[in-house]
């Protein structure tokens, strides 16, 4: 851990954050808005990587956690008009509860069965949103009266700060002894258990941490958008993007996941002139990375550094 503060990765990340922090001084509001969304998305992907890359759990339902946090915060603000910060906090807490509820049955099953359980959770949440349209705004979406701020620069800095702090905590956690136990229980649960580690407790903790950051990020995102809808925070397609970001950036690296998310969002925007082919091109690039650089962007870079 101490070695990290002198490693090249630390200085590169620090430099990236420092450069990114100065962006509002000279780029347009359009780019800032794009990056703001990308940063929140980066937190989704990092939280997912903690569960998959380290605990070895294939979670197809990141949007269950994200959506719960986002909709709880949005509904509280819409119905009761509570202050934005209380709503965001309660959204994150609701997401933690959702993560706990999801983890209890899900941890009994493994592999594809676990994946399906999490996928079903998303479909249930989606149905819930559509059925209780009075409360949630249904398919049209939920209007949120309050926003954190309307200043594009301030929103950008909040997102960047939030992503940096989340990255520091999640990366620190993944490199800590707890992260090692998680990695061990993901790779060989029987042996990790035989060494005396409580696997269920560790995986539950990973779930809760992942849920907390997903929910917090989801809640912040809806207060940035000023609306919550199935298409932006719940749909399976959003979850797929989160998974693709993490795999693209390099699983088990945490920081790579954020990189992948930013790439995915920015590339999607740059390819907008190609119209409907944009998603096709992004998916094709992602597939090529999966096939030829299975370690992802950061994984490939790190292994080259380790070799030299």
């Amino acid at each position, binding site marked *: 851990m101490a070695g990290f503060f002198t490693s090249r990765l630390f200085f590169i990340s620090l430099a990236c954050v420092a450069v990114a922090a100065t962006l509002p001084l000279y780029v347009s509001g359009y780019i800032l808005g794009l990056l703001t969304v990308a940063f929140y998305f980066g937190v989704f992907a990092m939280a997912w990587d903690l569960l*998959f890359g380290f605990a070895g759990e*294939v979670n197809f339902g990141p949007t269950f956690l994200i959506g719960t946090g986002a909709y709880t915060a949005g509904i509280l603000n819409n119905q009761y008009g509570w202050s934005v910060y209380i709503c965001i906090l309660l959204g994150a807490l609701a997401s933690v509860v959702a993560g706990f509820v999801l983890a209890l*049955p899900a941890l*009994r*099953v493994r*592999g*594809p*069965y676990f*994946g*399906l*359980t999490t*996928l*079903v959770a998303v*479909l*249930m949440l989606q*149905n819930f949103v*559509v*059925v209780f349209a009075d409360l949630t705004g249904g398919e049209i979406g939920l209007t949120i009266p309050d926003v954190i701020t309307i200043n594009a620069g301030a929103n950008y800095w909040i997102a960047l700060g939030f992503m940096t702090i989340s990255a520091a905590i999640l990366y620190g956690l993944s490199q800590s002894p707890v992260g090692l136990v998680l990695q061990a229980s993901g*790779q060989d649960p029987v042996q990790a258990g035989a060494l005396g580690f409580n696997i269920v407790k560790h995986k539950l903790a990973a779930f809760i941490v992942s849920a907390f950051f997903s929910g917090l990020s989801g809640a912040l995102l809806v207060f940035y958008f000023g609306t919550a809808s199935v298409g932006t925070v719940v749909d*399976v*397609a959003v979850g*797929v993007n989160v*998974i*693709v970001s993490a*795999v693209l950036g390099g699983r088990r690296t945490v920081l790579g996941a954020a990189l992948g998310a930013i790439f995915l969002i920015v590339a999607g925007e740059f390819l907008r002139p190609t*119209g*409907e*082919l944009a*998603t*096709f091109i992004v*998916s*094709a690039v*992602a*597939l090529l990375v*999966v*096939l030829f650089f*299975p*370690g992802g962007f950061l994984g490939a870079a790190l292994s080259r550094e380790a070799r030299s």
Partner: protein
Amino acid sequence: MLALQILIDGFAISALYALGATGFTLIFGVSGVLNLSHGAIMVAAAVAAWAAASVLHLDIYTGALFGVGVALIVSFATYFAVVKPIQNSSRIPNEEKEIFVLTGTLLWGIMIQELIAYFFTNNAKTVLPIVEGVVDIFGNRTPRNNIFTALVCCLVIGLLWLLVNRTRTGKAVLAASMNPRGVTLLGLELTQIYIVVWGIYGILAGIAGVLLGMFLGVSSYSVGPLTASAFSIVVLGGLGSVSGSLIAAFVVGYLETITAYMISPAYRTIPALLLLVFVMYIRPQGLLGRR
């Protein structure tokens, strides 16, 4: 009266689900691959059949055959371009191949979906049914197409059963699903068995896709829900168990039809999802699955 209508309507959709899920479970049973581009292959077959009829002006039968042929080609492409490279890759650790196959086939499915949307738009397409008109069953007006769909599904599943249990190739496939290493020791090439299985899968998915196109119509938006429904039916029945999938398909099909008729079409999928969660909790290996 209503009960009979539910019985008839539910049978056709259940048989269709069963046909779609059989191929999916066969692939998993033999090679351990969960093919998340399943929905895309079915939609590709239906859209190809539609395009053959309305763009190329072929007759209905040639169009249907064309659809199945396209599904077969896409199925082989999935195996050779996505699944095989991942399985043979030396850079991906063995315990992570499962997630890579999942991610890879998912991306492949999205690519097919986007290509279909690009060339044929997102509009829903209905393939012209082979048989038309309605027939009266004890006072229920039932489209002939429903009966045709159910019959074809049952026939194809029956043929599959004969193929797997009564032919030499089928027995090799069955053996590979039980013990791949044992099969290679007997001198059979595992890759060839995989190719056969992907071929069978392509034909099954193609027929299911074309029938779905005639029965309900498809659009590129159906890709996700189709994959999800096949996935849940297969897990409900027990991964790799063909008979489990058949039972699960009928359970899900009827549960959806009953909900649609008795409560509201808007709640159609909810009871099936609840059942799935319940089964996962008390019997994680599915109805007929082995652990």
